[in-house]
């Protein structure tokens, strides 16, 4: 079982990202689950989304999770919420920030000694898609860190999922995924 927790703000696309990832993984024959805690569901409010992936049908519906990966797609959430809650010894963090990994860990001691990778998904999204929607870049970074799929296969799959969007937006998303894949450290 692979488990992922997303930290996001409502409106940044964590749910779409989690469902998109589930969709891609499902085509490879694995079983998936994607869900979210909406809380009061106001745009901009901190929220969490979740992925589960397994070789057998996923029957666990508890919301409690000790994640293998934590994705933080809003840079402020590292400081305003505890992104390490219910962590495991080997939980891997991919955090969007303009800081270097060293600077980030120094500013947030909770992350010291943990496996932390950083990438500026907000900047990448603004420069490629033109809006601060950091979900698809995060998936590009995840492909690099996890080595889950070949990046070209992943991009092809995402093209199908983004399907009905204008070609320009799809192309920009592909660029964003590739940039995050290349830039995550």
């Amino acid at each position, binding site marked *: 079982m692979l488990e992922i927790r997303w930290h996001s703000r409502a409106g940044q696309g964590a749910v779409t990202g989690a469902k998109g990832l*589930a969709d891609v993984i499902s085509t490879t024959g694995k079983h998936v689950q994607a869900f979210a805690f*909406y809380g009061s*569901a106001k745009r901009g409010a901190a929220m969490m989304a979740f992925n589960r992936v397994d070789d057998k049908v996923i029957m666990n519906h508890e919301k409690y999770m000790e994640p293998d990966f934590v994705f933080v797609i809003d840079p402020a959430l590292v400081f305003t919420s505890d992104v390490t809650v219910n962590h495991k010894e080997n939980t891997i963090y991919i955090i969007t920030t303009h800081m270097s990994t060293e600077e980030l860990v120094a500013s947030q001691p909770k992350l010291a000694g943990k496996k932390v990778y950083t990438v500026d998904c907000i900047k990448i999204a603004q420069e490629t898609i033109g809006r601060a929607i950091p979900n698809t870049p995060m998936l590009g970074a995840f492909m690099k860190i996890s080595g889950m799929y070949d990046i070209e296969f992943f991009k092809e799959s995402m093209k199908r999922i983004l399907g009905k969007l204008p070609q320009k937006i799809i192309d920009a998303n592909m660029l964003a995924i590739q940039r995050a894949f290349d830039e995550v450290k």
Partner: protein
Amino acid sequence: MAFDKMELQKIEVWDGNRAAAQALRQSQVDVVAAYPITPSTPIVEGYAKFLADGYIEGEYVMVESEHAAMSGCVGAAAAGGRVATATSSQGFALMVEVLYQASGMRLPIVLNVANRALAAPLNVNGDHSDMYLGRDSGWIQLDAFCPQDVYDLNFIAFKVSEDHDVRLPCMVHQDGFMTSHTAQGVHTLTDDEAYGFIGEYKPMNDMLDFEHPVTHGVQTEEDWHFEHKARQHNDLMVKVIPKIQAAFDDFEKLSGRKYNMVESYDMSDADICVVCMGTSVETAREVATEMRAKGIKAGVVGIRVIRPIPFFEIAEALKGVKAIAALDRSSPNGAAGMLFNEIAGCLFNTDTKALLSGYVYGLGGRDLTKAHLVSLFTELQKNVDAGKVTTPLQQFIGVRGPKLSFL
């Protein structure tokens, strides 16, 4: 007006709402009258979009309340169309008056309910309060445990509900958010397979058949009211279960997926078991498997058909078990839980003298964790070892503050 067919993948990653909306499209529902409410909104939104995009030949009626939504459904069903809608929580509560009209008028309507808590305090998350509120309304109630079930049970609902020997409305329940907003793999049917399974809508006593005028929604006082109600109850008790069974059998032939009135898992040699509904059934199954690895003979019983209650099937599923936990996700507000009472009734005159204890859990979407279920199964085993219920008969799981227990 013609409509387009949609190519689906063999497995689509859908949440429960999407699964329901797709099932309504494939069933080619003629009329949806709806007043959207969280968490069921995407069901009717999905139908409206399919309609606007030319995938359905039908009509979406926007109304001013859920009371009006169900009234619109009653009107459309009496006129002779295939009718469905969706709601949750407060919307369901507002519909209640018309729910009794729909069933009393013997109108086949399918109502998708994304189960949600009832205010006050206001809460949009999933529990079974609305589902429990509907259980004396004369509707058939089916319960889904995951998005796949939601999809499949919608077809079962149309098939059973519209059967001329049944003519009763049917609810398809799913857990708000835990199913309605949780995306999982759903094995699909092609448009032709799905529509072929439920078939063309066959009207009965429809108001638009001018050759045979009929009256709907009549008044009967003490001269006839009781006979009508008795006949409705008779049909629920006698006719519906065999029709559901037949629909389950046909559906298994079509899809390979087997449904039962009462879903039993690891029950053949179980000493202890949990009886519950919704997503909790699946989580409990996973925990029961883990308990078995520790040498505890645990099983799970999930109630698939809530109304009519599969009385004998429940007794059969629980035959020989030594300790039972009845899990209710709705506050009984001054009584033992609904499942506790139903199970006690099913078993009272049988040879199964199990130790029965009740638990209230998960109100307002409170998480039911695997850790909760491990302690629950452990407690049941303790009851078996002691030969008696070692705890109060009603306990609360997962509530903060001093431990609450009653009876």
